[in-house]
């Protein structure tokens, strides 16, 4: 295929979203909260609907604030239900997000006459259209999504950079983190806020499926390759960026095999991330399925004596 600047902008937007999600995603995965991204991205629907019904406009800012607020509320409600009600956290999450999503659907349907909100649009986004909506900054004519996601990425980078040791501590040992004076609950809510803001910013642009995938899949792949946090973050970002490019290529190329036209890039970006995860799963240098099998077959289990490195995710 011929890559035009159009394609490049799509890939750039996807990569920015993906990397912005992969950063907090690593901590979500380490904190066993991988499903939070999925929960938040479904739960924001009533926030979007309410923002629209209240302000009567589809300006991004109101929608953004409404959605992000509901996103944080999802985390808070989940926490409340699992703590006060003694409910398993996964179940609490499921109850909260399905209920919020249902309320959102009802709100949209009730106001169908006035609202031009398509739940499908929220979920899939329209990454293919990103290059059409541009902002002019100085001499540059950048797609709005690229600008927005660039800002979000910088914010996330800043958060991870500034709070690196606190986040690391509270991810691995919340108890110690609390005793040392870094409230792990506060950090939890901070992380949830970041996830909510990232989710909302990204899926207005590219659809929630990228967000859900990029929060989990790159971090999971990185975790299979390394046991150290900093390499994990770097690898996750690399996987995220790569899956954006591969995904777009797949979206253009694969349908032509079946004689169809190009398909949804964001879906394919998730698939590409899954493929990269599969590669890490099978060929990971120290614990890939095939690598281990091959090593065992050669009977040279040399690594056995080296022992595991500093455990990144040993606490099961």
């Amino acid at each position, binding site marked *: 295929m011929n890559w035009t600047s159009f394609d490049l902008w799509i890939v750039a937007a996807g990569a920015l979203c993906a990397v912005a999600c992969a950063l907090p995603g690593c901590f979500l995965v380490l904190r066993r909260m991988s499903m939070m991204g999925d929960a938040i991205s479904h739960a924001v629907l009533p926030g979007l609907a309410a923002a629209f019904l209240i302000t009567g406009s589809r300006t991004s800012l109101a929608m953004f604030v409404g959605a992000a607020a509901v996103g944080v509320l999802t985390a808070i409600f989940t926490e409340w239900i699992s703590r*006060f009600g003694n409910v398993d956290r996964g179940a609490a999450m499921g109850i909260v997000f399905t209920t919020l999503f249902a309320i959102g659907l009802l709100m949209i349907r009730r106001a169908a006459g006035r609202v031009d909100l398509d739940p499908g649009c929220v979920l899939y986004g329209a990454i293919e259209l990103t290059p059409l909506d541009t902002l002019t900054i100085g001499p540059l004519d950048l797609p709005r999504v690229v600008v927005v996601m660039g800002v979000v990425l910088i914010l996330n980078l800043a958060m991870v950079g500034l709070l690196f040791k606190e986040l690391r501590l509270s991810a691995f040992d919340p108890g110690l983190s609390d005793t040392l004076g870094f409230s792990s609950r506060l950090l939890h809510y901070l992380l949830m806020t970041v996830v909510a803001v990232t989710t909302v910013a990204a899926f207005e642009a590219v659809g929630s499926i990228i967000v859900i995938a990029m929060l989990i899949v790159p971090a999971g792949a990185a975790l299979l390759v390394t046991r150290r946090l900093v390499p994990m973050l770097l690898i996750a970002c690399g996987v995220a960026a790569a899956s954006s490019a591969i995904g777009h290529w797949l979206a253009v190329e694969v349908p032509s095999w079946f004689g169809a036209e190009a398909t949804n890039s964001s879906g394919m970006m998730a698939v590409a991330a899954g493929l990269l995860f599969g590669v890490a799963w099978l060929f990971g240098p120290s614990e890939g399925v095939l690598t281990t099998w091959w090593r065992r077959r050669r009977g040279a289990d040399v690594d056995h004596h080296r022992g595991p490195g500093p455990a990144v995710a040993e606490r099961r």
Partner: protein
Amino acid sequence: MWWNRSSVPLLLALLTMPCAASEEGFDWTDVLFLRTHNTWVVVLSTAALGVAAGMVGSFLLLRKRSLMGDALSHATLPGIGIAFAVMSVAGGDAKCLPGLLLGATVSGVLGLLVMLGIGRTTRLRDDVAMGLVLSVFFGLGVAVLGMVQRLPDAAGLESFIYGKPASIVLADFHWIVSLAGIVTVVSVLLFKEFKLLCFDDGFASSQGWPVLVLDVLLLGMVTAVTVIGLQAVGLILIIAFLITPPAAARFWTDHLPTMALLSAVIGGISGWLGASISALTPDLPAGGVIVVVAAAVFLLSMFLAPARGVIGRWLRHARLRQKIGRQHLLRGAYEILEVDQSRSGAPDNHAFPRGELQGKRTWTPRELGRILRREARRGHIEELADGRLRLTEEGFGEAARITRNHRLWEMYLVTHADIAPSHVDRDADMVEHVLEADLVQRLEAALRKQGAWVPQPRSPHRI
């Protein structure tokens, strides 16, 4: 059974009237006309679905895998798209429901296998495996739908995501009800095995049960429920069917069969009520209403259920706190009397200043005042005119008994658990409030055997 078909919807209409009546332009004839065959099909299938999902969901909840349903339901999307494309290319009826559901099942089972594979061959945890399968499969599904959307007749495939119960026809109804029935029957037949799997899978495998097979079977049933739920409530809201009713039922009981039954009932009722409300009201999609009804049941259960509900637990906690405060007060008073009389043997009851009691424990004056008032009401203690306090006859006896329990436990800990006498007060404090009469007797027996027995043991430490 003519009455069955006509009286129940009337009841339903009455039940849902407040909701429906608040609608603008509400017309009773609408309700009358909706009482048709088709509404029945919809209502009954959602109810059957609720029963099956509630049943299977109980096991999922106890296995702490509630969100597996989430992952599995998302994983069905590519199958739907591919099945549609294949059937469309093959020239058949591209929207033939069994075909679509077969595709959904295949890709759901694939997702399930990937999930279990990740769990077994890597050190990633369940949540990562679920999130991964969910997002990658859903992404694939979106991409496939994107590819097939230009095929003729593709509109409406997306109704599988949000559900469209009104489109259920009689043929689907048979499918749904029989599959839901099979799932329910299988979970009843394998109840014992699933119970073991939920509570102790390690034990199950050590006893020779095929844990992996059971796991696959359980999740396979989840897939089945998800697939039949796709049309009724859509792939996002079927998750609520799998999670919310069991979680609500969990508040009412600690007994698994009761919980599964209750959860099935709650699921059935949510489906039934939700579908009827939505049928009686314009512009309310059934999937959403069903989930909101289930969530309302959950919230009610969470607060009101006596066994594990928030209010019940809070009340029990408050009652225990009161009891502990009362016992502390009486023991404090008794120990004051004991110190005064330590040289002359058994303490006798006399008045003592309030300040002394205040110094016995770290309680605020207000707290002490509150406990004092409560005890005065029970006739255990009285405040004299000069502001001093005195135990009543009854209170004195109660205080002696409480102090004795405390001392017995302390002695037991010192003689049997080798706890230093200077440390024993705190430890005894943690259990003495829940000592039952027969436990006290056993303590007495144990101490008597040790020769450490005295009618009212002295404190092993300085009071």
